[in-house]
Each structure stands twice: as C-alpha cells, then as structure tokens.
C-alpha cells in the first residue's frame, strides 16, 4: 500500500480525454518521477492530486484518506506540499515572514483568529523559521523582500516554505524549468539533501531527463493521459516502448 494511491482516474475536457484510467502508487520514502511528452496529462494529474481539479471518476487516497472533493488548503493540511513551476511565494513579504506563515499554518491549522498576539512574541515559530532558513542557506537574507530575490533563491525559499511544514509528500512541478545550468545543479543537490536528511517522499514532474535520472528512484511514464510503464530508472532507460514514446525525441 503506497502513501498515495491513485486508482482509475478519468478526466475529460470537452472532447479531449486528458486522463484515461490512470493508476499510480507512490511508496513511502521514495522519489517518484512522472515524465511524459507535452500534453501527456502530467499537469492535469498534478492538479487532481492537489484538489484543484475534480476527476470524472476514480479515487485518490492519501495516507488512507480520500483527497477528492477537498479544497487545496485541506489537502495541504493532510500533509501534501507543492512546489510550483514558477515559484509561488509571498512577494510583498520578507523572506522571514514567508517562512513564518507555513509555521503558523502547521501549528494553528487553516484558520485561527490570532489577531491580538504579537508576531514578535512567537519565539517558537521564529526559531523554526530561522532554522529552516539556515538549512537552505538563506538566513542572511531573512529581511530582504521576497520579490527582490534571485530566481534560484526564490525557488529555495519556496522549498523552505514547504519543508518547514514537514510534509508527508512533496510534489514538485518542474522544479528546474527555465533555470540556468548551475542553478539546476544546485537544485538537484538541494533535493538530494532533503531526500537524504529528512526522508520526505517526493513526486517530481519533470522534463529534464538529467534531473529525473539524478533523483528518481521510481519513474512513471505518462503518454496521452495513460501510464505507459512504471519502473526503476535503469529499466526505464532501456525500455523500448518508452524510447518510442518519449525518449526517442529527446535523444538521451
């Protein structure tokens, strides 16, 4: 039984079958990559997992509970955090405030009317936020406005915001899209470190084969909205069907 169990998901947009009978199982404590050519349904699948889209049929079980029909914030509270293709951070807030917010969300839940308490009195939250910023090497930037960060730093900040919640599952949507080579390498290193140190289960959607093969322990290949094959990276590399559907065109 995996941490995340996707069974028989179907989703149509008008006449287009975006997802057809998708089954997927992500085991605890693995890094699972979902790859596939453009339009294979990767983003649709991701949006189903986080509650942004409701599938026409099928079930999505996370940690023994169904996620379907729940709002994104409820799914997050269940233990799924998401990193976006372009980092979604609180641009108008400082770096430190950016990481304090998930700390509050973790401690107080989806809503709490703590309107009179002072932020400055929340020593526990501040310590948590400081230690996570230290972990991603951003402590010296704590008072900077998030919008003034470099792209790589924004990505690291977003990662820190997810990690500080100590999620059971971290979803990463093309975490290196549009990054320069050095930044990509840094991100791979960061993700590896997170994986080793914290043992967080990760699901990665990625185009860059280099990233996929450096990180993934299991790979699912999606084509035309259906999983083609699921296996270890080594086996995927040699799989004829995969070469035909996907790898052939990228010449790995």
């Amino acid at each position, binding site marked *: 039984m995996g941490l995340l169990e996707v069974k028989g998901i179907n989703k149509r947009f008008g006449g287009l079958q975006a997802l057809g009978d998708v089954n997927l199982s992500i085991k605890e404590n693995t890094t699972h990559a979902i790859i596939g050519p453009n339009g294979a349904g990767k983003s649709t699948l991701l949006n189903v997992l*986080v509650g942004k889209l409701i599938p026409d049929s099928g079930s999505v079980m996370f940690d023994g509970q169904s996620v379907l029909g729940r*709002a*994104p*914030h*409820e799914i*997050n*509270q269940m233990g799924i*955090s*998401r990193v*976006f293709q372009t980092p*979604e*951070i*609180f*641009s*108008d*807030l*400082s770096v*430190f*405030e950016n990481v*304090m*917010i*998930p700390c*509050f*969300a*973790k401690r*107080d*839940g*989806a*809503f*709490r*009317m*703590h*309107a*009179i*308490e*002072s*932020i*400055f*009195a*929340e020593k526990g*939250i501040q310590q948590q936020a400081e230690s996570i910023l230290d972990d991603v090497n951003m402590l010296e930037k704590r*008072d*900077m*406005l998030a919008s*003034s960060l470099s792209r790589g730093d924004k990505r690291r900040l977003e990662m820190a*915001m997810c990690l500080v*919640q100590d999620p059971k599952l971290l979803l990463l949507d093309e975490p290196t899209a549009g990054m320069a080579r050095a930044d990509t390498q840094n991100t791979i290193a960061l993700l590896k470190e997170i994986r080793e140190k914290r043992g967080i289960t990760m699901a990665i959607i990625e185009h860059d084969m280099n990233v996929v093969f450096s990180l993934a322990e299991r790979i699912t290949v999606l084509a035309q909205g259906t999983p083609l094959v699921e296996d270890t990276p080594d086996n995927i590399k040699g799989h004829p069907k995969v070469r035909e559907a996907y790898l052939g065109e990228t010449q790995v």
Partner: protein
Amino acid sequence: MLGLEKKDFRLLLIVIGLTAFAPFLLNPFPEGSDLAQFNAGYPDLMQRFVIFGIFAIGFNILFGLTGYLSFGHAAFLGAGSYGAVWMFKLLSMNVLPAIAISVVIAGLFSLLIGYISLRRSGIYFSILTLAFAQMSFALAYSVLTPITGGETGLQLALSDPRIFGAAQTATGNIPVPALFGLEMRSSFEWNVGAWLFTFNAGYYLAAVFMIIAFYISIRIFRSPFGMMLRAIKSNQTRMSYTGLNARPYTLAAFVISGMYAGLAGGLMASMDPLAGAERMQWTASGEVVLMTILGGAGTLIGPVLGAGMIKYFENIFSKINETILHGWFAFLPDGLEDVVVAMIYPFIGKGWHLTLGIMFMLVVIFLPGGLVQGGQKIAALFSRKKAEETKPNATEPAE
C-alpha cells in the same frame, strides 16, 4: 509597552499627544486675525477629524492589508448611525449603549454582506459591495422609512419612549446625548490673550475611542492574523497551498472594518443625534477610499492623516473665496494680481474637490504608500541616508 514594539509605542504616544492637544494645535492663529479662518480647532470639525479617522483606520484593515477594495463601507457607518439613534429614542440619551449597539449592528450587517461578497474577489468583489451599498441606500431612502426616517432622516422626538431616561427635559425640550450627565455638546472655553481654545466633551470621547481603535489596529498589523492578511494580498495561491483558508481571514478583516465603520457611525450620531440615508451612498464609501489611499493604505498612521486632510480641505480650504485671494495677492501689481488669482482660484475654495482629485491621482500613480511614503522619502532625502537603508524596513509595514 502594552504589547507593542518600541517604535509602535512611540507612534501611539505621538497620536495620543496630538489628539489630546488638538484644541491648541489646531488653533494656532489668534482670534480676529486674518489667518483665523485657518483655525480648525472648533468642536464640530475636531469631532469629524477623529470620527473619520476611525472610519479610515478600519477601512485600512481591510483594504490596506488584504487588498480587497470595498466600495460599500459607508453602508456600515450608516447602519451604525441608525442603531445609535434608535438607542437614544428607545433607551436613554447615554451614549455608551448607543455606541455599543452601533458596533454590534454594523458587525452583523458586515458579516452578512461580507459573507456573500467575499465569495468573489478582485473587481467582482468591489462591484458586489457597491451593489449592496446602493441597495441599502435605496431601501433606507424609501421602503424602510419607518425604521430610517426616509428622506428626512431619523430624528429624535419628544414622544420617544426613552424607557431608562427622560423623554424630555424639565423645560420640555428633547434631551441631548450625554455620557452619564456629561453632555456631548458641552465645551470649556479658555481665553489666552488673543487665542481662544475650546475643549469639547464629545471630541474627547471620540478621541478616546480613536486612540483605542488605533491601538487595536497596531496590534492587528503586528499580529500573525495581520501577517496572514498581507499574505492574502500578496499571493492567494500560495496561501491555500500552505494549508491556509483565505475566506475566514478576509471575512474577519471585513467584519472588523465594518465594526470600525459602525463605531464611527455611532459616534457621529452621539455628537449630533440624527441619521440620514445619504451617509450610506456609494460616494460616501468613495470618500473613505480617498482618505485611506491619500494618507497611505497599508500604513498605520496614513488613514488618520488622510481623513484629517480631507476634512480640513472640506471645511477650511473650501471657504477661501475670491475676495480673500485678492486680499492675499494685493501686494502684486493689479494686472498680475488678477492673473494669479484667476489661476489659483479653480483649485481652492469651492474647487477643492479638483485639487483633491489631482492629488489622489498623483498619489495612486507615484506614491502607492500615500503621503506617509512621501513624507518618508522626503525625510530620507534630508537625513541623507542611503537609499538601501529604507529597504530592509520592508519587513514591517511602514508606520
């Protein structure tokens, strides 16, 4: 002190000082002098300064923090006024129950309207609040006449029950609002040489409420709740993917600001016990938008400054007429005098709205932080501080 950081506490002290000494500060010119017309230290206007200050402080909690632009907040002020006047009619002329009920009524009313309007965001939210406010105005003006007094407004009458107080005074007049016997309209006048200072009971009551309102707003700004509201303004997607439900946060902010508006309405009725539908019109809501943004949305003190400035313009600046202008420029050669007066006149006196509109546009275009930000920029210029130094301050909302 009082759970505030040093900087905020200093700001609070400044505000307390300014409101306490307002009768002096606003009357700097001796009676009878040419400049006496610029004195703003008379009770009626001072009351308006603090009451609209409260209104704007509350509006700022919604707009300044969450970015939700409501064009309907005057409806809550109006509802608060009606509630207060009804207390005067039914209960007694004591202002405390009247003010309490105005806050409660405005709170419930804003809960209802906020609950519906906040289902949508952005421009749709603005238009929903606008539609609700116009609806309230139209109803108060027509069908609800038994409750609101319709066109003439809600007024006190000798025949009102006032079960805990006298229906009429010994002389057969309608009693006036008072705080345990201290009449709101009573004033103590102090002559110092050529100066006349007026200390009005109603003003000081309203000022105490404004200071409390201001203090609560500082606490909200510096609280986790306030941080969540700024997070909503910044990025709602990240908000929900961080496990936070934006809806109750925005609704809480909406209701809090609605209660502030109700408090302002209740105080208004306590100073002058009548309430009219025009207080609910959308242009009245537009006025508080102007105040907040002119002073500096999202800053602590900005809305109060904006409210003070607009009320000063409205009551003092607007009285300057052509004769006064000619008096000022009499030192110029005749022809030039006429030209100068002709050029300035459209912008002052009755044309003050034009100046206000232009200033407002300039603020929206160049100074998103309003006059407070403008002041900070000027201060930074003078103190020759490096530009970088202002940036780390972005951690906390500006003063």
